[in-house]
């Protein structure tokens, strides 16, 4: 303990510089985002007369009401949230299973399969979308959320790869003790391996959730009915072909669309920190 305190003291000054640097970088990162928020409080004439102005004058809150009333956000929130939750939960299970097999189990063809998994990550969606759509229509998944959830859960090479890397950085001894106690692969995966890679799984959840939340192209092609729409589809309705784009309402709509992700991130982030502390204690 004493040693730790001394090191902390000696890096206090450089710590201050670090904070400064991180803050500047953070500001640069968040500036466009802030500008979006500021714009969402401007009136349309103000934007048109002074497109590069910084502060709203006066602050105009009606854009939010306009955006909220122009499109059924409530339903789209619900659709996006439940698609997101199911996708994340499903992906964590299937990706952990496959990743564990690739990292720890020796079976025939495992190397070849892994490379194949990696290769599928390289196929651009723009070329598979038409045949994929045919498959969906054969399965009766057109205009349903199944088309968004099932393929996402059952095919995520990125997730398999990420979890495999996390598992490979765990010491094998962890599992061997359990194995001697007679635990099977199933139990080892769910009660030993997964708890020990919680930070990795939390990061994966965030990545998968964001992918599901911001997915645009597939829902655009697959969903037809407005009551099935997800948040990005709704958002895209604010930019039509003709007529003036109501810039401030789009910004307000974008801000509205981020809220659930923001909350999820704040909660999820705390979970990462907690699980870090836990894995730190359990990993001995």
């Amino acid at each position, binding site marked *: 303990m004493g*040693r730790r305190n001394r*090191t902390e003291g000696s*890096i206090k000054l450089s*710590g201050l510089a*670090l904070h400064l640097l*991180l803050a500047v970088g*953070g*500001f640069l*990162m968040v500036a*466009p*985002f802030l*500008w*979006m928020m500021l714009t969402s409080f401007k009136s349309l004439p103000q934007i048109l007369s002074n497109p*590069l102005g910084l502060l709203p004058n006066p602050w105009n809150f009606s854009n939010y009401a306009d955006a909220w009333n122009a499109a059924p956000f409530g339903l789209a929130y619900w659709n996006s949230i439940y698609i997101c939750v199911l996708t994340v939960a499903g992906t964590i299970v*299937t990706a952990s*299973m*496959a990743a564990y*097999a690739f990292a720890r*189990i*020796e*079976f*025939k063809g495992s190397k070849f399969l892994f490379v*194949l998994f*990696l290769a*599928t*990550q*390289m*196929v*651009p969606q*723009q*070329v*598979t979308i*038409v*045949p*994929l759509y045919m*498959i969906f229509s054969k399965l009766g998944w057109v205009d349903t959320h199944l088309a968004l959830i099932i*393929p996402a859960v*059952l095919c995520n090479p*990125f997730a*398999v790869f*990420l979890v495999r*890397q*996390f598992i*490979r*950085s765990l010491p094998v001894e962890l599992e061997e003790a359990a194995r001697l106690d007679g635990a099977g*692969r*199933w139990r080892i995966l769910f009660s030993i391996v997964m708890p020990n890679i919680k*930070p990795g799984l939390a*990061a994966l959840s965030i*990545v998968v959730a*964001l992918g599901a939340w911001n997915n645009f192209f597939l829902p655009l092609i697959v969903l037809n009915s407005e009551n099935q729409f997800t948040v*990005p589809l709704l958002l*895209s309705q604010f930019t039509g072909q003709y007529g003036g784009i109501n810039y401030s309402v*789009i*910004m307000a709509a*974008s801000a509205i669309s981020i809220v659930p992700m923001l909350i999820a991130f704040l909660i999820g982030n705390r979970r990462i920190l907690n699980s*870090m502390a836990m*894995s*730190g204690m359990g*990993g001995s």
Partner: protein
Amino acid sequence: MTAVLAKTRTPDAPPVERGEASWRKRDRWWGLVFVSPQLIGMCGFVLLPFAVGLVLAFAQWDGLTQLTWVGFANFQAELADPVFLRSIINTLVLALITVPVGLALSLLIAVALDKLRGRTGYLLLYFAPVMTSSIAISLVWQQILRADGPLNQAFSKVFGIPGPDWLGDPHFVLAAVSIVTIWSSLGLNVIIFLAGLQGINPHVLEAARVDGAGAFRTMMAIRLPLLSPVVFFSTVVAVISSFQTFDVVFVLTKNGGPDNSARTIVYQIYDEGFRHFQFGMASAASIILLVLTLVVTAVQLGLQRRFVHYES
């Protein structure tokens, strides 16, 4: 064979040889069971559709009428098309800029945040862009990148010369696309690196400290090597996804930039397929992209042995 393997791999294996053998036997089965959900998905939702794409690459098809077989004509036409060659170069340039810069920045930020108090606040700042919808990103950045926009106002204040027309000048559009790409994906890599750093066993670090290793030495000798599987992962994924750059180009330039200066391979695929109704050409272009990606990834996998440290 199994017994030999078992012996060489675990010299201090328990004396119950039979139990180990049956464990390994069952493992073959478990491996397939564990992989099967993802395997089924991969076959049904990527390989099968892609097989169709593969077939289409040798045909002329507009999506509406009967297809006709044309052999390798689509490949020849694509490879002879200066616009497509331009898109290959653009794609490679984008990867060469965004992958190293993006990864180095996120690694630095993740290392800085790893043991920092008040990390959540910073993380939120770096993560905000990732949460923003592509529609909002395009609108905001089109403003920022205007010739008379805020970026150039700052630019001229710092350097004393007027900044470039980022989206209008063919020499700068790729730079603009790179900036937005790095900006919008930085947060994801930070999160992944941070998760990797936090997964490092604190006892290992403590041991190093006891041995008298300083912060820098600990970083170079312990934390970075332990993080290398995750860094490797991020590099491979970053290269693959940068080879598939489409969204940013699409929303930022609408038509691939002046003189196709920001047209990427995937933009070309979209353009051939959905704007020109030439799915054969689109498929041929995507196969060329796949080969390119496979080669680069194979090289990375080959280098893995030298630079990546795995536990055990």
